[in-house]
């Protein structure tokens, strides 16, 4: 069975009539998008430069990067005509601390408690040893 492809009439190439006026083909024209939000500002070299920078009165935030001093300044006009000026300073990130393994304290006793128990055991052994020696000596004396 043969495939039949239907070509839309608009795709069929028309022979070029040399007497027909030729119109330029439609080309892509970039459209200005006014809805795009972009940041206002510029790089500065000092805080003074940022402070005296003239900004728009429309209340938008202006950002001034001061890389040499590791700071970013923001400036905007408030509704009462005053300006807000903020300073953001770079801070070095804290080094990661090694994770401390979790210890189950139920498996351990305090050193004092252990020493007390050891002393009790030692004392008990000493008492028993003394009794055993006395008993042994008594038995030995009875034989002779």
């Amino acid at each position, binding site marked *: 069975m043969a495939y039949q492809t239907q070509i839309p009439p608009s795709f069929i190439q028309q022979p070029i009539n040399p007497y027909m006026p030729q119109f330029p083909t439609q080309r892509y024209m970039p459209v200005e998008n006014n809805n795009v939000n972009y940041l206002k500002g510029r790089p500065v070299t000092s805080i003074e430069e940022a402070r*005296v920078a*003239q900004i728009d*009165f429309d*209340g938008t935030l202006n950002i001034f990067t001061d890389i040499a001093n590791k700071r970013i300044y923001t400036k905007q006009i408030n509704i009462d*005509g005053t300006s807000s000026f903020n300073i953001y300073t770079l801070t070095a990130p804290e080094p990661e601390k090694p994770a401390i393994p979790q210890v189950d304290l139920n498996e351990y006793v305090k050193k004092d408690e252990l020493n007390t128990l050891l002393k009790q055991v030692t004392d008990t052994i000493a008492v028993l040893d003394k009794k055993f020696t006395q008993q042994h000596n008594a038995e030995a004396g009875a034989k002779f």
Partner: protein
Amino acid sequence: MPINGLQLIQMIKGGNNPQQLVMSVLQQRAQENPMYANLLKLAQGNDQQGLEQIARNLAKERGMDFDKEFANFKQIFK
């Protein structure tokens, strides 16, 4: 299209009502600028002290002497 300061002065000199002109400019800009909205509110409430304070703040922001600039502005209409 917003009216600039020079156009405003020319319109006032041309015989237009300054108050109406300024109010129309404020109404035009108040839609997109909160400071102008505040100015419009003060103007509608006839708060001259508040308006002057904003003008002084803006002049200070631009590094201008308000009293001197206002005196120069008034000279234009003499």
